[in-house]
């Protein structure tokens, strides 16, 4: 069964955007063989809009998490504990990693195949 990964990226190739700065997430659909395709560019209200922090304790983080609830993994360059906590409530794993999407997705797929039954991160 296929699953979805959300990526915070500025150019569609490298994961380079902070979670709170992302105004949209690229949604990838990955099938059982690890092949993936971009299906959507989902827009959100950035959690840390314009350098002004108003989201950490508020509902904006939850709003983003709600809008990403169908994905299993969110990849971004950097993130904070509030983001992780908000996403965890929806069973979404938030991973900080700076690398090309084409390298990251196979690693996630490999991990998911090995530990799908055993590990919930």
């Amino acid at each position, binding site marked *: 069964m296929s699953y979805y990964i959300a990526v915070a990226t500025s150019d569609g190739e490298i994961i380079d955007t902070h979670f709170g700065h992302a105004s949209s997430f690229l949604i990838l659909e990955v099938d059982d063989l690890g092949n993936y395709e971009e299906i959507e560019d989902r827009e959100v209200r950035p959690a840390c809009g314009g350098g002004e922090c108003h989201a950490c304790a508020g509902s904006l983080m939850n709003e983003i998490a709600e809008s990403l609830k169908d994905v299993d*993994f969110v990849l971004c360059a950097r993130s904070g504990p509030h983001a992780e906590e908000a996403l965890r409530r929806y069973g979404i794993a*938030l991973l900080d990693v700076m690398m090309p999407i084409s390298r990251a997705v196979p690693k996630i797929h490999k991990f998911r195949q090995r530990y799908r039954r055993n590990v919930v991160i």
Partner: protein
Amino acid sequence: MAECIEQSRVACALGGIYTALAIDGVLPVTHTGPGCLAQASDILGRVNGGQAPVPFEESVVPCTDFCNTDVVFGGGEHLRTVIEKTIQYYDAKLIIAVDGCTAEIVGDDIEEVAESFEGSRIPVISAKLPGFVGNNLFGHSQILKSIVNQYLEPTGEVNPLQVNVFGIVPFYDTFWQGTLEKLEELLEAIGLEPNIIYGHGHGIENVKKIPSAGFNLVLSPWIDLDIAKLLEQKYKTPYLQFDNVPIGPTETTRFIRKLVEYAGLDQVRAESYIKKSEDRYYYYISRHQAFVYACKYVPKDFYFIGSAAAAVSVTRFMVNDVGSVPLRIYITDNVPKERQEDVRKSLYDVELEEKDYEVIFTEDGGLAAADLRKEHEDRSVVFGSNWDLLTARSIGSAFVPVCAPYGQTLIGSKNYFGYEGGVALFSDYYAEIVTNPQVAFIG
């Protein structure tokens, strides 16, 4: 799956890093989650007599903060970066890269990472410390094995008088530092050249000298026998096992005579040392004799809950020198099944006619405490760790702490080793009996 345990007296395998930290100049770099280090300090560090390793305190140990991302993407590169920075910023003489459960489950190759630092300013070795395999004694053994296998080099010469000391687990044996100092004095006094790797005044130079020893001395019922056997296999160094850290005149004298016979030392010198020390011991005991006789009530039996090493030491002293009888002995540090018989044999090897006490192996300290609360003699004495203080109080017993976690106090250089240690334990024991109102002043 094993049952969960209560009142743990051991740390997870990562507690093994305390063995590394006890060697001056050795710095572990941990490839573990950010909270993993803290759990061991609750048993071995601060709560264990207020101890902290010197010069590298627990809080400065570099850690990769292994997180979700490392699980998915592999943490090898992350570890490599942390080691690079450690070499840059720390003045260590040896770095040991260690990993914990998570890194072992996902299969990060820390050996490969450590090997890639060959030829760097500070040598880097690796040790695997997955907590799902064993406790801190397993970790201790893993650290020593790594040092022997990856760091030691043959020295090409053997000094027949040099003796390496093993069997005392630093920090887990709360009195390790004082014990090692006194042991060093004793070994020197009878004509040996002790080579101790842990603690003050020792360090990496002593580690390098390990292969040139005439023999290895193992002072425990089973711990470190694997290391002694490994050294025997690698460097053909024979080993002598004495099954406990001797406390009091009977056991210490036996220990010295065994050493003298084994190493072919000067018997006259050793006997004169024994004579002098025993005289001194009995002088001090005599000074307290009148006081002891004036005690209104002196318990004649005791319970023990704690590590196998401390159990043997304390039981021998209490039976052979003080004349008390053990009622039940709980061994809480998960002695391997094949070693349990040896420990049992050591615990029954005392000068007592009716040895009708029980020895119970359980890792669950809570179970031992519950057992004790259910069935016990009144006004007895409990030897154990800080966990057992309240148990002892609730069953109206006196309490003497002898093993980890020792409690929120400052241990200083306190130890119960040898003749002087006998005096110290004797006085601590009677001081507790006469000041503990539950035992002392009734009836």
